[in-house]
């Protein structure tokens, strides 16, 4: 790695960490209940009043921590998918992996919880599991349908789009059977919403996502080689199909867990890796850490905006992400030769 690039990497990482910290502090202050920075500080060190303590510790902090985790998770999932499919348009949302996870969660709530409003403590622990099962099922369907003596990246994307539509339709069938209130709740969640944020959810998801992300970092070199195309990777002594399956599993798990808490947020897995690649290049050792931080930053930004723009009405974070990324996405498409 040359020195210039390394310095740039360190600068970007520092900048992003700084941005996240600043945004974190701003986000703590803002909301339906405004808390002055000094009061936030007081509360954090344990000198605040009961109301501030409740708002900060029970409502805001867990939700913000979740936003950071989900943002990082989805961005990493997108980066891995783009690497193994060698297609810059791959994203767990576009491929149907998020929708598969969403479908499983809807099924779980419909059959076991009865209502979106009353998810039990056990439910909080089971939901990531169901989301994972849904995500894996979707990925398996995509993989099997796209398999034709090996996986052709283009086929993978096209089949993924089809699977996405299929699961989307299946979700609507169950949504229609819900009562109006749950229907609304489900609709909001499916468009991406960090719901039911509390420390229990954080305690379940944080370890899962924080274990998977370093594994992905460890796979950086493999992703670099896969990115050269199958023929080159084989020539370099890579067991391509095996590695691709492994990396797909990793991306699917990251997406599944993120969806369990954040609903169907699309575009984040597309945009974050793109921007990261633009600023540092395609070498995964450098590009993945930036992707993760960028994803975390973008989702926290989107959630903060969504909470405050039309307060007290909340805009689902997924919709804010879409509004923020759609122009970028169109710009990308226009630039494609």
């Amino acid at each position, binding site marked *: 790695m*040359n020195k*210039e690039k390394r310095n740039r990497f360190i600068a970007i990482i520092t900048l992003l960490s700084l941005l996240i910290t600043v945004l974190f502090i701003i986000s703590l202050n803002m909301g339906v209940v405004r808390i002055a920075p000094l009061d936030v500080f007081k509360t954090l060190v344990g000198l605040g009043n009961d109301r501030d303590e409740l708002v900060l510790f029970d409502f805001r902090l867990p939700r913000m921590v979740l936003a950071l985790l989900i943002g990082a998770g989805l961005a990493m999932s997108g980066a891995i998918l783009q690497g193994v499919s060698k297609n810059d348009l791959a994203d767990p949302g576009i491929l149907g992996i998020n929708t598969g996870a969403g479908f499983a969660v809807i099924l779980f709530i419909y059959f076991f919880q009865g209502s979106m409003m009353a998810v039990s403590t056990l439910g909080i622990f089971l939901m990531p599991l169901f989301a994972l099962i849904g995500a894996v099922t979707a990925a398996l369907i995509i993989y099997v349908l796209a398999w034709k003596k090996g996986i052709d990246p283009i086929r993978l994307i096209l089949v993924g789009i089809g699977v996405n539509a299929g699961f989307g339709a299946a979700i609507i069938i169950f949504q229609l059977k819900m009562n109006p209130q749950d229907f609304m709740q489900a609709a909001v969640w499916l468009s991406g919403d960090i719901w039911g944020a509390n420390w229990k959810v954080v305690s379940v998801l944080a370890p899962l996502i924080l274990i998977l992300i370093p594994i992905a970092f*460890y796979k*950086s*070199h*493999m992703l*670099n*080689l896969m*990115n*050269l*195309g*199958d*023929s*080159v990777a*084989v*020539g*370099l*002594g*890579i*067991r391509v199909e095996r590695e691709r399956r492994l990396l797909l599993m990793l991306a699917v798990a990251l997406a599944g867990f993120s969806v369990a808490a954040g609903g169907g947020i699309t575009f984040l897995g597309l945009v974050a890796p793109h921007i990261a*690649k*633009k600023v540092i*290049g*395609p*070498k995964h*050792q450098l590009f993945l850490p930036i992707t993760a931080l960028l994803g975390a930053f973008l989702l926290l930004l989107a959630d903060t905006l969504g909470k405050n723009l039309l307060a007290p009405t909340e805009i689902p974070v997924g919709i804010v992400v879409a509004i923020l990324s759609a122009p970028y996405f169109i710009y990308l498409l226009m630039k494609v030769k």
Partner: protein
Amino acid sequence: MVSLSTEHLKIGYGDKTIVEDLNLNIQEGKITTIIGANGCGKSTILKTIARVHSARSGMVYLDGKKIHKVPTREIAKKMAVLPQSPDAPGGLTVYELISFGRSPHQNGFGRLSEQDHKVINWALEVTGLESFAHQAVDALSGGQRQRAWIAMAIAQETDLLLLDEPTTYLDMAHQLEILKLLEKLNREEGRTIVMVIHDLNHAARFSHHMVALRNGNIIREGSPIDVMTCTVLKDVFQIDAEIVVDPRTKKPVCLSYDLITAEQQVANVKKVV
């Protein structure tokens, strides 16, 4: 030195058989060129030897061992493969690309050792890309890009180099540049080179051994003098070729050619008249 051969190789796509029964013996330390018409199976054979495509039956032997019984990473230390028009991810620098050639010799994380850096710099030097080391591969010209890929393949430090149409899409000067580079690698380092190229004159000029294929079968193999003959070219390409000896290189050259079918038609017309 590493030997390479195939035994009763049968290859196909779907229900189409491309190669029926191929017995190929690659001479060590030599440049071998496979020639043949489009769709005759030359690229398919190279892909099968490179283990990108799997054979229906038969065997590829590398170093006397059945190729699919040896861990793929071990093979990558003996045989480097450059596929047809490879595509580098946008923004990847020449140095980074070449460094990937070191991966069969590395641990899983891809950290480059002192030795790796040495080899990468050597590959840059041999291919004349020193001044482009930190430029993006996709911003280079076609000839430079192809040299960068060859640099990656030679950084793999293998005795055997397989190249599928390394000169396609390049202009005349750049084609020659690539072939001279390969010739140099062969002469100075004794690397065995197997390649597919379309330009017959280049094939004749740069190879020690030529293999002419038709429908997956070897029509003739041997030195350029043996293979570059009117009969072989007629059999392989259905052309009527005029072969002379190049005064500069003393190698056979196809001076001019015509399609046989067209000529036969003319002959027929003459007969009628």
